[in-house]
């Protein structure tokens, strides 16, 4: 029991899983209908899943994809990239621009457009990366440049217009593939997650990223090139940004440089923080971030279901986020652990005293 408890409190996944559980239990008591999943026929005539759970998973996909890149950057650079949403707007604009200039929209054209937007997003991300890795500028400040200029660049790419694009192929990327009842963004997110976790599992990238984040000097002495590792994190983040941008464009069917993924960078950073990755760098937890993204989306959907006006959702979200971070703060954690330890000591007086926490 004691061992299990220790393992449980030691894991980074405790807080995110606990918070998710809390939201689920809250919803169970509030309204059991919240969890109902039904099969409805969409306007293309195919049966699709619908319900709050599906909309949570669907809505969280963009944030979850962004949070993969953000986790890596946070881990190795000890800071956050606040320009991801602005870069997603740029990537989305490039995507739309290529699609519109190509005439007929076919699958290869969509792929080419996606590759273009990936390229552009990776280039912009590399700009951030070079500032952070080579010039050793704090990530938040370095990315402040693109944060303030990014959406303007997106504006310029499409000449200030907010063109709409509608096509069955795009609709199937942003919505449902005919015949498959699960929304495509969820599938893309899962594919992305599996790919990245395979890369992290079968290469040393994950290890190197954490080492650079924990102690750059040691990493350097052990033959790891910190600059390269940081740049790689930014490149991966660039691909994530392009994917999230393209999915969002496909979902809404138009590119609006002002509102595309507005405030998403804040949600993404929150997802990473709730997921158990320290914003000060070091060890990271990819699945925690994904869960964090879903917590935020679950919160939003729950609040909408409670008829909270959309603009006021932020206030409630802020309160809940503060509660979550206070629970997971080192001060509260230590206090709780101390209480448990005292209780344990009382019970087993004659056994070996519990080792002091590191």
């Amino acid at each position, binding site marked *: 029991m004691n061992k299990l408890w220790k393992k449980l409190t030691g894991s980074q996944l405790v807080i995110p899983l606990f918070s998710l559980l809390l939201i689920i239990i809250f919803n169970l008591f509030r309204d059991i209908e919240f969890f109902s999943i039904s099969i409805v026929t969409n306007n293309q005539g195919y049966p699709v899943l619908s319900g709050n759970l599906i909309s949570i998973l669907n809505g969280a996909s963009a944030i979850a994809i962004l949070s993969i890149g953000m986790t890596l950057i946070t881990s190795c650079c000890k800071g*956050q990239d606040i320009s991801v949403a602005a870069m997603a707007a740029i990537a989305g604009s490039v995507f739309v621009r290529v699609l519109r200039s190509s005439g007929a929209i076919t699958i290869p054209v969509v792929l080419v457009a996606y590759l273009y937007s990936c390229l552009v997003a990776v280039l912009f991300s590399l700009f951030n990366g070079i*500032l952070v890795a*080579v*010039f*050793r*500028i*704090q990530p*938040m*400040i*370095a990315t*402040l*440049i*693109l*944060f*303030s*200029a*990014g*959406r*303007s*660049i997106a*504006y*310029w790419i499409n000449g*200030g217009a907010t063109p709409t694009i509608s096509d069955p192929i795009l609709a199937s990327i942003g919505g449902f593939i005919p015949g498959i009842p699960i929304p495509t963004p969820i599938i893309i997110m899962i594919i992305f997650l599996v790919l990245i976790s395979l890369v992290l599992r079968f290469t040393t990238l994950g290890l190197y990223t954490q080492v650079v984040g924990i*102690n*750059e*000097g*040691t990493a*350097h*002495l052990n033959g790891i*090139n910190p*600059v*390269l590792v940081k740049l790689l994190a930014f490149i991966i983040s660039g691909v994530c940004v392009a994917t999230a941008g393209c999915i969002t464009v496909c979902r809404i069917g138009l590119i609006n440089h002002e509102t595309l993924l507005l405030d998403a960078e*804040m949600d993404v*950073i*929150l997802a990473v*923080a709730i997921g158990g990755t320290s*914003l*000060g760098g070091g060890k990271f937890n990819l699945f925690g971030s994904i869960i964090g993204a879903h917590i935020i989306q679950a919160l939003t959907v729950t609040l909408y279901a409670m008829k909270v*006006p959309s*603009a*006021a*959702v*932020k*206030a*409630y*979200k*802020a*309160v809940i*986020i*503060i509660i979550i*971070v*206070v629970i997971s*703060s*080192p*001060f*509260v954690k230590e206090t709780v652990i101390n209480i448990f330890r005292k209780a344990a000591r009382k019970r087993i007086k004659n056994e070996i005293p519990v080792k002091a926490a590191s």
Partner: protein
Amino acid sequence: MKKDRNLSGGTSLNRGREPISNTNLLMAITVCTFFGMYGIAMAVWKGGFLNPQQFLDLFNNNAFLLIIACGLNMVMISGGIDISGGGITALVTMVCVVYLEDHGGTVLGSILIALGIGLAFGLVQGILVAYLDIQPFIVTLAGMFFARGMITIVSIAPRTASQEAFLKLKQTRITLPGIGYYGKTGNFIPAQIEPGVIVAIAIVIIVAIILKWTRFGRNLYAIGGNSQSALTLGINVRKTKFFAYLLAGLFSGISGYVYLLHTGAGDAANAAQAEMQAIASNIIGGTLLTGGVGNVIGTLFGMLSLKTITNIVIASGLTKPYYQSITTGLMLCFFILLQSVILAVRERRSAKSLIPEWMKFKRHEKCES
């Protein structure tokens, strides 16, 4: 004085011929840039830039931003970050207008409400950051979300204040003697400033005094430079951090009232992006996000430079809004790179350090830890 300089980031060991400290060097660059930029603008575009009123309008329109930036300056020197300023400002405008309009409030009451909201935010954020060790970015982000969300809970529609006593205060203008310009008809129009500007300038002076001559100010530099060694020196790190956030919150409250005096309306879109502009002003003014280096006078000129470049962009015919944010981004980029290069050179005392590690083809003997 010398002790003070060492605290504020100077790298000197030689007491006799002390080189300029990082703080003062970065500030000097910003001040020179501002005067250079304004000088060029006066020479090239003439017109508006020669008009003293336009210069004073930089203050009139951005007094609130300056106040937020002053509070942020102290937080940044202590090594933290506060991005709740814009949200608190907007919340204060809305609450004050609703109080004045719907509850028959007085001007004094609304001022007290503004200060109270600011203090409350500062108090909570300070406790969370300093005593519970939560990352300041997350805490103040939640503060910003909370403030922005609360605005719509207070009132969904934008409101305008029409109470007489308040309008009287709002329309107060302070005329500067001897400065002015000639209107189209040839009559002399004296230059005017708003009461908010006086508040902003007073706060700049107060913060400058706090940072320079009080124990609290020096403690801020010390914990920003290295909070571990500050702790071993016997500085109460938690208390110092707490007061930095408390003051930042209070200043955001004041900033909200100044904003209200400028526009007279409460709106959820008020002071949009003000927090990022405040951070940018501080960075241009030579305050480092890593803490320990910075100066509020630099922040003042940082803000002025940021707004002057926008005016220049408009004056040169690029009136579309996206040019302004792109130039702001470019300017930030320039200053960030400049600071990075200067600090790198001063730290290692050689230009060699500018070459990134991976470009050097020899083995690395040294490493940073």
